[in-house]
């Protein structure tokens, strides 16, 4: 007699945590934070529960695109040390499950955001998921060394969606918040690529370090950091800027630029001598950079709410 349960007895049983890991929780935390800031600094108030639900659905949408990315990229994730332990390449979740979860949550999050907030925000979320899963993951990641630049746009949308949840439309402030993350992403990831080099080489992903060499990558980091500075400081002169943001942005961009100049001036021999200390420091600061910029916007919004400024 055939035992119908055989297939269930031998396989590893994916737990709830394995499915949750498909949603890239760490990326999600950045999405939640920036979307929340975009929503809170907007001049229109939102009911707390509507705001909470909107941020939740934006996060689920971001997670869904992460699951789709893991479904598509399982082959290269398996090669790279940083990503080899992800649920699909490690065999804890099947690629089909990742695809199913990604598609289901994509549709769910967009519809729910439309119902909870407005359809402009929902459309923007749908576009973000499409952009990350299709334009970045499926198309550009493996074909162009500018993959990081264009892929960065997907990560830059959340504060704009948060803003649209509150106001229903896009404005200069939303565009500049988008631009800050968009311009910040290339230096952030290229610094990572400089000291995690073998990973991208092995996977055959055309990172700038592989295609155009490390010298060019160092120069690119400097150029993008130089372009980022006026955008980040410029945001301080819009209606959502304030003294805390402006002072913080000037100081942080000066420091970031200093790091980028140091990276551009070094060569591989110097970098290997101190085990990429400057590049690692720059990468770590880049995380703080983004967090503090959006944190400062929130502080200024709070001060404005209290009538201090």
């Amino acid at each position, binding site marked *: 007699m055939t035992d119908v349960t055989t297939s269930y007895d031998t396989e590893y049983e994916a737990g*709830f945590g394995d499915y949750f890991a498909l949603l890239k929780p760490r990326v999600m935390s950045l999405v939640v934070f920036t979307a929340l800031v975009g929503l809170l600094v907007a001049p229109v108030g939102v009911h707390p529960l*509507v705001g909470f639900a909107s941020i939740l659905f934006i996060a689920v949408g971001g997670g869904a695109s992460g699951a789709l990315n893991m479904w598509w990229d399982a082959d290269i994730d398996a090669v790279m040390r940083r990503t080899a332990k992800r649920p699909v390449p490690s065999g804890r979740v099947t690629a089909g499950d990742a695809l199913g979860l990604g598609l289901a949550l994509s549709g769910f999050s967009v519809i729910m955001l439309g119902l909870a907030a407005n359809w402009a925000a929902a459309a923007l979320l749908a576009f973000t998921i499409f952009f990350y899963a299709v334009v970045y993951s499926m198309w550009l990641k493996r074909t162009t060394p500018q993959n990081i630049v264009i892929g960065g746009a997907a990560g830059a949308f959340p504060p704009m969606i948060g803003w649209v949840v509150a106001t229903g439309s896009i404005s200069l402030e939303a565009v500049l918040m988008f631009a800050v993350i968009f311009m910040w992403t290339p230096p952030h990831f290229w610094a990572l690529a400089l000291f995690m080099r073998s990973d991208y080489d092995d996977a055959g992903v055309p990172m700038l370090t592989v295609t155009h060499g490390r010298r060019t990558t160092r120069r690119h980091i400097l150029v993008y950091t130089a372009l980022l500075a006026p955008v980040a400081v410029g945001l301080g002169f819009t209606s959502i800027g304030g003294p805390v943001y402006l002072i913080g942005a000037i100081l942080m961009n000066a420091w970031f630029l200093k790091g980028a100049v140091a990276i551009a001036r070094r060569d591989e021999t110097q970098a290997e001598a101190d085990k990429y200390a400057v590049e690692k420091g720059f990468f770590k600061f880049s995380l703080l950079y983004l967090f503090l910029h959006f944190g400062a916007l929130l502080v200024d919004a709070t001060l404005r709410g209290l009538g201090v400024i």
Partner: protein
Amino acid sequence: MTIRVTHELHDRRFSRNMGLGLVLVGLVALVFGLTVVKVTNLGPVQDYAPAVQQSAGGAQ
């Protein structure tokens, strides 16, 4: 194979089922909360019946 009420599979899938159950309960609570917020934010809604009578009366 003996048929048991609780298969060993139930134990292995406990975390997944419990997690999904809690997510669904949370979703129900959230949708209910959103409904309450949306309905109360509509403000006072005019009663339908008198409005119909009024317009009917005005037509005479």
